[in-house]
């Protein structure tokens, strides 16, 4: 069912947010109900494509994320399909109460594009490196949430969000990231994809960490370890059946995310695993600290978000699996 994803020989890189921006145009062409809102961040969120193509359905709200969220709710209540865009830090934290009461409790058809997720945002530093979105959005009933791994997945997640009835949050990063999927790689909201097979352990990743997971897998394979790689793009609803299968079949799990360790992807997987089939888990994540300024690469190294960190975690998990 799932397409096998090989590490590309030559890595093409593209911004996930560009997938968002392009998909919005495609959506806009197909459906007049699509409306896009932005909070003084047209270029950063790549809503500029839509703004140019459909100026009459583009609403610049200015620096007022709470208001933007409420306006989107009002548009949705009138049958529009609004996509709002700002940095993830502000899309979640600044408008959390608006998301909770006006959007989620009302179950309105609002789509949220949260840009600049993760530490790879780079020199802007901690305030702009959103790393709490999964924890916050997962706690709100009725919300769906996707953290796509590359350009194409973001593109497809954006289309899927429009099709889905109800609020959806899509997280994307700032930097160019390796394109690991293809235009025809399957994508279903709510389902994880096994990108590479293996029976020794499972690496469950989302966002840019999917690429790191594939690289880690290659390294592990060289020492005779067969790691399964799951792209868990949808954080909510969670693909519990797949996670249970991976826990049973491989007996150890490493999660990898560019997000706080508390309540993120790792937390979501841990919750599923202890309920279904408890196995040793290791977490590759930001260890409950704020980000900082630096080059994206420096930061990914310093915060331990690299393939090599996944390899170390995998070895620890395997060791524990053997001892258990």
């Amino acid at each position, binding site marked *: 069912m799932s397409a096998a994803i090989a590490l590309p020989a030559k890595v093409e890189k593209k911004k996930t947010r560009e997938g968002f921006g392009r998909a919005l145009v495609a959506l806009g062409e197909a459906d007049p109900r699509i409306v896009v809102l932005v909070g003084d961040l047209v270029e950063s969120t790549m809503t500029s494509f839509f703004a140019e193509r459909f100026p009459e359905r583009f609403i610049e709200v200015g620096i007022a994320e709470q*208001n933007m969220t409420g306006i989107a709710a*009002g548009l949705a209540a*009138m049958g529009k399909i609004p996509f709002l865009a700002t940095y993830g830090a502000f899309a979640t934290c600044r408008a959390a109460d608006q998301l909770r009461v006006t959007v989620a409790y009302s179950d309105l058809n609002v789509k949220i594009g949260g840009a600049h997720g993760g530490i790879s945002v780079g020199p802007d530093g901690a305030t702009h490196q959103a790393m709490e979105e999964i924890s916050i959005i997962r706690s709100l009933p009725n919300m769906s949430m996707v953290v796509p791994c590359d350009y194409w997945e973001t593109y497809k997640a954006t289309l899927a969000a429009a099709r889905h009835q109800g609020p959806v949050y899509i997280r994307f990063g700032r930097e160019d990231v390796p394109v690991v999927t293809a235009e025809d790689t399957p994508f279903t909201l709510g389902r994880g994809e096994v990108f590479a097979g293996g029976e020794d352990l499972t690496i469950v990743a989302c966002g840019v960490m999917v690429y790191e997971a594939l690289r880690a897998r290659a390294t592990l394979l060289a020492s005779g370890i067969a790691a399964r790689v799951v792209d868990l793009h949808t954080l909510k609803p969670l693909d519990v059946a797949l996670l249970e299968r991976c826990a049973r079949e491989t007996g150890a799990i490493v999660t990898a995310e560019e997000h706080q360790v508390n309540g993120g992807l790792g937390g979501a997987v841990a919750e599923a695993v202890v309920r279904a089939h408890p196995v040793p888990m290791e977490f590759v994540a930001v260890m409950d600290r704020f980000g900082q300024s630096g080059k994206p690469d420096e930061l990914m190294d310093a915060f331990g978000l690299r393939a090599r960190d996944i390899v170390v975690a995998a070895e620890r998990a395997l060791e524990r699996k053997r001892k258990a």
Partner: protein
Amino acid sequence: MDPDTMTDAGADSAHRAGRLAWPAERLRAKALEIRRDIVTLLAKAQSGHSGGPLSCADFGTALFFHELSVDPANPAWPERDFWHFSIGHVTPVIYSLMAERGYFPLRDLMKFRAFDGHLQGHPSCQDTPGIEVSSGSLGQGLSVCCGVAMAARLDDHPRRVYCVMGDGEQQEGQIWEAAMFAGHRRLDNLCGIVDYNRKQIDGDVEDICGIRPLADKWRAFRWNVIECDGHDLDAVLAAFAAARAHRGQPSVILAHTVMGRGVSFMADDYRWHGKPPKMPEAEQALAELGTSYAAWSARLLAGGADRDAAPSPDGVGP
């Protein structure tokens, strides 16, 4: 919730569309019934807010029985005006207005805040037909209404949008974000109404965090400001008419009211913001309002929709 319960009102009354445009005198009589409903349902629930609902009762009645173009039997009627209470805590008046107007049977009011009812403590669009967006966290409603007004503009739809706010609520910054947006966009299909009762939970608004001069604030945010006595129905109707006539700016009606208005021992007393009358208090209040708990709760439980509310078929008045 049983969807059948929800459509009782529609079942036993003619299809009702459009504005009722009742005259002030008739509104006065209805407002008295709304007050009786409020006291009765609060006494039954023994939970909920008394003060704000009573200060909203008169202009609320004008809104529902004169101004709004709606079809309670078909809450999603595409031609409807949009109304929203950003002050979600005034559900007693919201639900009374809705039931009296025919959105659901009057008897449902007797299950206010009850586990087995559909009338949540704060408005929930997932529970109550006719509520379009949930509220209860203050300060969020005007933004929603901006979105609805923008949708109408996109669709070139004549819908008007009404947003009821509190005066204490004016302390929430999101109100001013929305105000700035609406002023900037010249959303003249939008009309705000502030229940200016000078009270909030902890006391006088001007003691807690003064909002004066409120008219200057709205003007500085590029709104057309209309002030009126929120209990004088002639004045309220004139204010609505002025708002409707005004072009090029959103309008806000500062409706000067008295918290707890209509019940002597509640009037102008902030301690009645958030509590219901105990039964003896409710009896006294209902006596002042010319009825009794037994009589009025019987009327409510008798259930049906209010037939008086049926408009003429052309939807422009009785």
